């Protein structure tokens, strides 16, 4: 409930905004009009109110004319409401005695009709003057920030964010779903454009994570529940059982050798199905933590109960293997969460005319990364499925990108990694390489020079999106090859090019469970399915949920330098909150007049932010002032009218409406 208290003294300020407003709205007459409104003691117009002298004007009037309410008619509150509130605060007035009127984005910028614009401005100022009389003095609440941070996802983004935070002395929980950290970067061979070995630059960081005293590393774990709000999140993490105790395992891997399966039989995810693993396995030799995992779906002991358990014997006195291990749930409190859950490669089977899964010698780029890698399934030899070395290779760009039928976006990294693979394959095999592209996108530092290098290596670049990959041979030279039919658009001819091996440059898309994850953390996804940032230009790492930040490919496809930069930015934003120690709320939360509340619970289900709890004993609803975002849904929905909202009280709104409708 609000009431106008005592002697109201309003100052009205009309901004020219250079000529943005004054060219269309008659600011002088508007200011004059302002002066005629009830309770207005001073009304001015000024060229740039947001500037220092402009704010001084307001502060001076507050002091000299003893103003207790201020109306500013200028640009959008999104831009300068904070500025003018500060002006009031430094001028000695409660900042919430300000009412801003938008006569730019909602007026002078949307019409050329000067009369209509001035008339609308007058209506808005009149309404604001009536409303502001009922504004109340409000205080911002401070919510303390717990200093710990959780980083979800242990790829390069998560690792870099975790290290940055840990190095500044904050405690980090790094949660990773796979048995090891490292993410996709651990699968790469060399990185563009410098051809640095991915493992060589990644493993030191992985090692640093393991040994950092401020990082609690939980691999083979997933977040299952998130409660709370910025500064005070309560997170439950489910830790799947490895059946090997991390603190006892020395990483000697004897158990792997000793396993009763002499030959590995099960698909190895790390090698993208190109190699096999045993039921007891480690993703790759430099895994962190260096502890194997037993897969209960394939281990004989778990499936039948009758195994010689040679692994346990091999472990010997360390007794690290514990088949009775159970899953555990940890619960921690953190102040901020950084999501670095990454992306997944596009499933090339969705484009049947490229032959993936149909012809054996059609590979995806990630598979070729493993082939080219010295510690991959073929020891670094680029060979076809039958062991032959390819003499000609086609690299098909834009598979599952820039395509209305699958994913509309450009996946950003594929042109560069296609060039990189072209170079590496040529180096390993001396084959004739053809890159089939629509555009070559090489914007980063050193990228164009890398493209030039490839051109000079006599890699063929054919501008044409591949129409089909087929085994149809029209000519003896095409027998037993895969034929690429494509229009060479630059030369203007349709070509048939037989090759031994086809590499599909698959795009990046959101993880399969992105939708579930985003619900868990209460953030939103953009139309492509990637997590949505707060502002595409000015706030790329924060989300609309305070305290939750994004880093890496989960926010959109990007390469390693951009991922690391983003991870650093997310860490910095989290640090800013932690070091500030508290976060201030906009005092626009709804509140329940408990004596009037009838306990019907209508509001509880309606709240999109889950900010209302129902007190069982008292049978009343209570709104969490920190979680409430002031959307007003419950205020409108409450059947007994017992919910009110600060900053948007009924009386204030009615006054504003009356102000608009009353002619003057």
């Amino acid at each position, binding site marked *: 409930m609000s009431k106008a208290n005592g002697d109201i003294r309003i100052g009205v300020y009309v901004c020219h905004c250079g000529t943005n407003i004054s060219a269309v709205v008659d600011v002088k007459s508007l200011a004059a009009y302002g002066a005629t409104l009830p309770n207005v003691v001073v009304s001015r117009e000024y060229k740039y109110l947001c500037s220092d002298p402009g704010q001084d004007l307001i502060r001076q009037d507050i002091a000299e004319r003893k103003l207790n309410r201020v109306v500013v008619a200028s640009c959008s509150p999104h831009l300068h409401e904070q500025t003018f509130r500060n002006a009031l605060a430094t001028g000695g007035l409660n900042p919430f005695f300000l009412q801003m009127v938008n006569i730019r984005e909602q007026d002078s910028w949307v019409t050329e009709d000067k009369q209509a614009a001035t008339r609308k401005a007058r209506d808005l100022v009149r309404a604001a003057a009536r409303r502001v009389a009922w504004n109340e003095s409000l205080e911002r609440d401070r919510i303390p920030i717990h200093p710990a941070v959780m980083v979800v996802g242990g790829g390069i983004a998560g690792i870099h964010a975790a290290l940055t935070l840990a190095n500044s002395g904050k405690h980090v929980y790094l949660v990773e779903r796979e048995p090891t950290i490292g993410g996709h970067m651990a699968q790469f061979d060399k990185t563009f454009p410098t051809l640095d070995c991915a493992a060589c630059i990644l493993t030191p960081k992985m090692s640093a994570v393991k040994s950092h005293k401020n990082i609690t590393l939980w691999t083979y774990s997933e977040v299952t529940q998130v409660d709370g709000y910025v500064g005070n999140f309560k997170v439950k993490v489910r830790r799947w059982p490895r059946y090997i105790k991390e603190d006892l395992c020395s990483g000697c891997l004897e158990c792997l050798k000793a396993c009763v399966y002499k030959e590995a039989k099960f698909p190895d995810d790390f090698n993208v199905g190109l190699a096999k693993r045993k039921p007891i396995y480690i993703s790759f030799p430099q895994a962190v933590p260096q502890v194997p995992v037993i897969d209960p779906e394939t281990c004989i002991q778990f499936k039948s109960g009758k195994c010689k358990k040679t692994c346990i014997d091999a472990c010997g006195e360390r007794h690290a293997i514990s088949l009775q291990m159970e899953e555990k749930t940890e619960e921690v409190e953190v102040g901020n969460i950084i999501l670095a859950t990454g992306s997944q490669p596009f499933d090339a089977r969705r484009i*049947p*005319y490229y032959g993936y899964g*149909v012809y054996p010698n059609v590979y995806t780029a990630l598979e070729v990364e493993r082939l080219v890698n010295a510690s991959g399934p073929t020891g670094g030899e680029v060979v076809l499925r039958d062991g032959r070395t390819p003499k000609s290779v086609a690299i098909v760009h834009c598979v599952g990108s820039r395509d209305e039928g699958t994913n509309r976006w450009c996946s950003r990294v594929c042109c560069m990694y296609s060039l990189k693979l072209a170079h590496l394959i040529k180096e390993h095999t001396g084959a004739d390489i053809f890159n089939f592209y629509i555009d070559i996108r090489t914007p980063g530092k050193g990228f164009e020079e890398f493209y030039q290098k490839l051109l000079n290596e006599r890699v063929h670049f054919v501008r044409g999106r591949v129409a089909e990959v*087929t*085994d*149809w*041979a*029209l000519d003896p030279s095409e027998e037993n090859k895969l034929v690429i039919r494509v229009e060479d658009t630059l030369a203007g001819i349709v070509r048939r090019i037989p090759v031994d091996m086809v590499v599909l440059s698959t795009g990046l898309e959101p993880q399969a469970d992105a939708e579930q994850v985003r619900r868990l953390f209460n953030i939103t996804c953009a139309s492509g399915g990637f997590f949505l940032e707060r502002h595409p230009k000015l706030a790329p790492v924060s989300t609309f949920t305070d305290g939750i930040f994004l880093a890496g490919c989960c926010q959109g496809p990007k390469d390693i330098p951009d991922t690391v930069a983003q991870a650093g930015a997310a860490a910095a934003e989290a640090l800013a909150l932690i070091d500030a120690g508290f976060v201030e709320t906009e005092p626009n939360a709804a509140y329940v007049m408990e004596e009037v509340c009838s306990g019907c619970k209508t509001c509880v289900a309606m709240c999109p932010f889950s900010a209302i709890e129902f007190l069982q004993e008292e049978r009343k609803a209570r709104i969490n002032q920190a979680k409430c975002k002031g959307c007003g849904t419950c205020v409108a929905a409450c059947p007994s009218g017992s919910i009110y909202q600060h900053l948007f009280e009924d009386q204030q709104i009615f006054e504003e409406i009356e102000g608009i409708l009353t002619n003057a």
Partner: protein
Amino acid sequence: MASTYGYFPGCSARGTGVAYEESLLTLFRLLNLSLDELKDWNCCGATSYMSIDEGSAFLLSARNLSRARQAGHRELVTPCSACYLVLRKTQDYAARYPEIAKSVGDSLVAANLPPLDSVTVRHPMEVLYNDVGLERIKSKVVRHWRGGRVACYYGCQLVRPFAEADRPHDPTRMDELLQAVGVPTIDYSLKTKCCGGSLTGTIHEVGVRLNYILLKEAARKGAEAIVTICPLCQYNLDAYQGEIRKHAGEPLDMPVFFFTQILGWALGGDARSLGLGRAISGRRSIEEWFSKHAEEVESYV
């Protein structure tokens, strides 16, 4: 299961495609399905009408669909791919573009015909696959296949752009139907590559070459026959093998069947009522594969 479907034969059903109609009717009879020919049906216009006047093209189809509805048919089966496409396209475009819906609707009203919605356009291949089912067909097989391996050729307009009859890029329903009656099929990469349609009649060399490509690849993959679902495709592949033999030096003499002929034979139909004697190419293979039961493949002259 006795079912009656509306039947739209199309203009080639009694001309070059007569074997298709013969075998279709025989096969459906063996399966207790009846086809009720649409009275006074008109030509669907195929690709030619659409090239001259779009509105008239849609109207030709609308008239057929509307008459089908008037006759009480919920479903209209057409064996010809071009007819199938044009009828489906008319429905699709009338649903998506108000100007087409209006122009077609107005013309129908002026002719005292009901609106064209609610008739589903069907093709025999997917009718057999969806309505009859592989199991039922399998259970009615009375003859083993004694022929060679076949290449199932779908052509274009049945599977593109509408994907209801089968998948556009790798259709397999015909293969599955034939496999169900014991016919071995090959992996045919060109199964949806265009045969050129009417090009064999207009730009002859180009048309023939497209068919040469199809036949050669089928042979290369080990097929001894091609099985089709469209009368024009069958004609193109069948009628010019002599020319191909002469000009390309390729020793081809491959029978080109309609899938209804193969299925009809497996289910007990006789050679004559399946139109097996109407083939131009591959007559020797046909004699070998279909002649055991003292039913000679007769000539029709």
